[in-house]
């Protein structure tokens, strides 16, 4: 098995900038929490925040790079400088993206005023929002360093940073990555600050983790990345020895009261590192300072550890930096081991005796080998990491590793599939598509989740209903045995985000909807599906622009164990105002399309309708597509087994996409090509719908000639033959779907 070394790290928080300054600040026990200078709303309460003071408030007028991107670049530069090389793969945990900049424009342009509700207004301001999407943060880092590999964006709320590191660990161990920059970033924003406030989860007197008078969090910002490699270095900051991911499958925002999911993630991380709980020297708590989190986390620890090791939370020092905190605390965990100290719990004065665990109040010198670092988030998303100071490959084999090593190739077996489009559910969608008819449009809302009791879905927005419908269409709950959920959405829950921000604007900061805030998180759909299926395994959400489906697929094929069953889902909602504003491929005057695809997947090939694998995802625009295929699976498959190509060329990438496609096709005589966005319409996860069409064709062993604009004869497929699904977004993607 491969050891994953930390050879570089970068960190920015409200406390400090850089490794040395962060250690120095932790040693003083001071807090970075204070007033924000980034935005103010006339009627809103003053909320203390953790603002990264090392980053200037405004960048130069000529540069409109959002604050989140600037934080990410700064931390990435530190990590890359320390490692002395460029990373090939990026895994970025993020929940805010360019939202702060978007908010600034909304407020300045009076975006939510009724008189500005028009396509022409949208068209006029659209260019300002080009860095709104979460994926643009990872893209910016990839551009800065010229990373040729995939730039993945994990968005699992407050566990994003740790979940990103867990995914990077899996990619490196499986050999699908050799070097990776992984961590998290978030900037302050109105949405998150007033969202948590609407849930009464902000402590206006300052965060006091594990204190008996704790009242909540202080929203903060920051960024942190680990530079990870499987090449044995001369020296390193430590190793990522293990990771555990779980889902509570319990509630949209509250943790399981006994911390069952948290406990499972911790147990898994420790086992994955080949350790026993008693070998952990220090637990870096999630420790947010909310009544519920600290109580649930304490119960989970009490259940897992006979005698818990020293533990502490640094959230009172840094604030709660959402997606960044998992990255920041992974860096602090490495520092704690390397430099031999246990950070204190800034803000905690009277530890809550009822918790049954007693935090380390002030920093103490200690010899630390193995640190367990926890990050939990909305949607019941739990991630735990073990950061160790061992080398020489001293970490032992865990179960997850054994799985990864045993998998000969990582094709996923697809047992069932689903699609939702403008013409209806799976059957209607695929009938139309197979006859070459367009399905673009938006399905009527009453057709979504029609089989579920109204009360169970009353709080759900369109995107979550799309996800639940895809899941139900793919596999009924009762028979599924689904453990894990992999979810992709280019733009997330636009309805809830829009409603929340409009409410905030209209009330000048006074009144906001907690239901909209909870629903607005990118992983709320996957969290809700997990509740429906009681899926308590891995739960990962991706927001990777036009490659969101491919990113979820990549994680699924990397992380699903030999006996595991999972749902792979991807969808986007067409929102009247936000979709044409944010998505560069959606013309402000064009009718909207939405929907997606869903797949019931696992490893066991018995009963599989099709096999599916992501063979390439990345920015390598220099290398011809045919060579990317050659490097990945050899050109013989293309000439002998490939029966058709489904090409997803987003409108905004038309010229470049067509150029690359025609260059590719020149190598193959008379290959049938479907440009599927002509049928699906323009939305980020159109690839998932096309994948469902491919699976259905392979199941029927029959590719209808009507799919192709040059009206070909139908093709009969035999075993080993398949369809190549290409994506021409900001990243290029190559997926093979093969008949068993």
């Amino acid at each position, binding site marked *: 098995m491969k050891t994953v070394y930390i050879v570089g790290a970068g960190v920015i928080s409200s406390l400090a900038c850089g490794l040395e300054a962060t250690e120095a600040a932790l040693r003083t026990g001071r807090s970075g929490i204070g007033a924000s200078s980034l935005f103010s709303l006339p009627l809103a309460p003053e909320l203390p925040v953790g603002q990264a003071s090392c980053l200037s408030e405004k960048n130069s007028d000529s540069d409109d790079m959002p604050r989140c991107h600037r934080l990410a670049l700064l931390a990435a530069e530190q990590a890359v400088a320390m490692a002395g090389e460029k990373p090939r793969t990026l895994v970025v945990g993020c929940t805010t993206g360019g939202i702060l900049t978007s908010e600034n424009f909304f407020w300045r342009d009076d975006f939510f005023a009724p008189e500005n509700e028009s396509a022409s207004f949208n068209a006029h301001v659209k260019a300002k929002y080009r860095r709104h999407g979460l994926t643009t943060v990872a893209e910016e880092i990839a551009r800065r360093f010229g990373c040729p590999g995939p730039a993945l964006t994990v968005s699992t709320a407050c566990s994003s940073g740790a979940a990103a590191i867990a995914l990077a660990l899996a990619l490196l161990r499986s050999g699908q990555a050799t070097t990776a920059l992984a961590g998290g970033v978030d900037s302050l924003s109105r949405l998150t600050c007033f969202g948590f406030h609407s*849930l009464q989860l902000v402590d206006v007197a300052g965060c006091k983790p594990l204190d008996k008078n704790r009242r909540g969090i202080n929203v903060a910002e920051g960024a942190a990345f680990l530079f990870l490699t499987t090449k044995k270095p001369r020296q390193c900051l430590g190793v990522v020895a293990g990771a555990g991911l779980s889902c509570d499958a319990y509630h949209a925002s509250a943790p399981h009261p006994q911390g069952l999911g948290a406990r499972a993630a911790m147990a898994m991380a420790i086992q994955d590192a080949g350790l026993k709980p008693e070998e952990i020297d220090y637990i870096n708590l999630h420790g947010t300072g909310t009544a519920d989190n600290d109580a649930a986390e304490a119960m989970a620890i009490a259940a897992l550890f006979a005698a818990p090791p020293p533990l502490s939370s640094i959230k009172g020092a840094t604030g709660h930096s959402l997606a960044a905190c998992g990255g920041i605390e992974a860096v602090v965990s490495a520092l704690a081991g390397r430099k031999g100290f246990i950070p204190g719990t800034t803000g905690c004065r009277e530890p809550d005796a009822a918790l049954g665990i007693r935090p380390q109040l002030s920093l103490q010198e200690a010899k630390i080998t193995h640190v367990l670092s926890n990050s939990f988030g909305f949607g019941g998303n739990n991630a735990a990491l073990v950061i160790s100071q061992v080398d020489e490959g001293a970490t032992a084999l865990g179960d997850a590793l054994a799985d990864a090593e045993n998998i000969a190739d990582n094709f996923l077996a697809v047992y069932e599939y689903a699609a939702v489009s403008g013409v209806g559910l799976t059957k209607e969608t695929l009938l139309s598509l197979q006859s070459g008819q367009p399905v673009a449009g938006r399905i009527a809302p009453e057709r979504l989740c029609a089989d579920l009791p*109204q009360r169970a879905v009353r709080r759900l927005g369109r995107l979550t209903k799309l996800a639940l419908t895809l899941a139900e269409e793919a596999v009924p709950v009762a028979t599924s045995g689904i453990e894990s959920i992999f979810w992709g959405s280019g733009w997330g829950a636009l309805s809830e985000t829009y409603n929340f921000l409009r409410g905030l604007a209209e009330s000048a900061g006074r009144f906001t*909807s907690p239901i909209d805030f909870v629903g607005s998180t990118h992983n709320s759909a996957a969290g809700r599906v997990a509740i429906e299926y009681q899926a308590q395994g891995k739960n990962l959400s991706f927001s990777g622009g036009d490659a969101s489906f491919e990113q979820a697929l990549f994680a699924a094929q990397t992380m699903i164990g030999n006996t595991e069953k999972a749902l792979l889902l991807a969808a986007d909602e067409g929102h009247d105002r936000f979709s044409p504003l944010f998505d560069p491929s959606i013309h402000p005057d064009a009718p909207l399309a939405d929907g997606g695809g869903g797949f019931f997947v696992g490893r066991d090939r018995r009963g599989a309708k099709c096999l599916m694998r992501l063979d390439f995802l990345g920015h390598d625009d220099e290398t011809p597509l045919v060579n990317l295929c050659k490097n990945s699976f050899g050109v013989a498959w293309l000439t002998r087994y490939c029966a058709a190509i489904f090409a997803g060329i987003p409108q905004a990438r038309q010229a470049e996409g067509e150029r690359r496609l025609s260059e590719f096709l020149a190598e193959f005589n008379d290959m049938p090509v479907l440009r599927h966005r002509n049928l699906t319409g323009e939305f980020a996860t159109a690839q998932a719908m096309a994948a469902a069409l491919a699976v259905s064709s392979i199941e029927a062993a029959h590719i209808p000639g009507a799919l192709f604009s040059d009206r070909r004869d139908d093709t009969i497929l035999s075993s080993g033959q398949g369809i190549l699904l290409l994506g021409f977004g900001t990243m290029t993607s190559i997926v093979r779907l093969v008949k068993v």
Partner: protein
Amino acid sequence: MNALLEELKEKLISLLNLSDIRPENFDENAQLVGGELGIDSIDVLEMVVMVEKDYGVVINNQEIGKEVFSSLASLARYIESHRKMA
């Protein structure tokens, strides 16, 4: 008071999207939170915002909140008495 009760029934049905019940079937004395309607802590917070926005009545204490949101009738009583005080 009765007018307020009827108004609140309509408001909660729309605010919490309880579209499967009608105002005339909304039992004002039934357990509101954690009862048959499936109303939970997030809904309570949503109602807190509505009560402040529409009636100018602030409920920012969990203990009081528990009592206030025990039923629709108690919510109406609380709004009624605190509106008068204002």
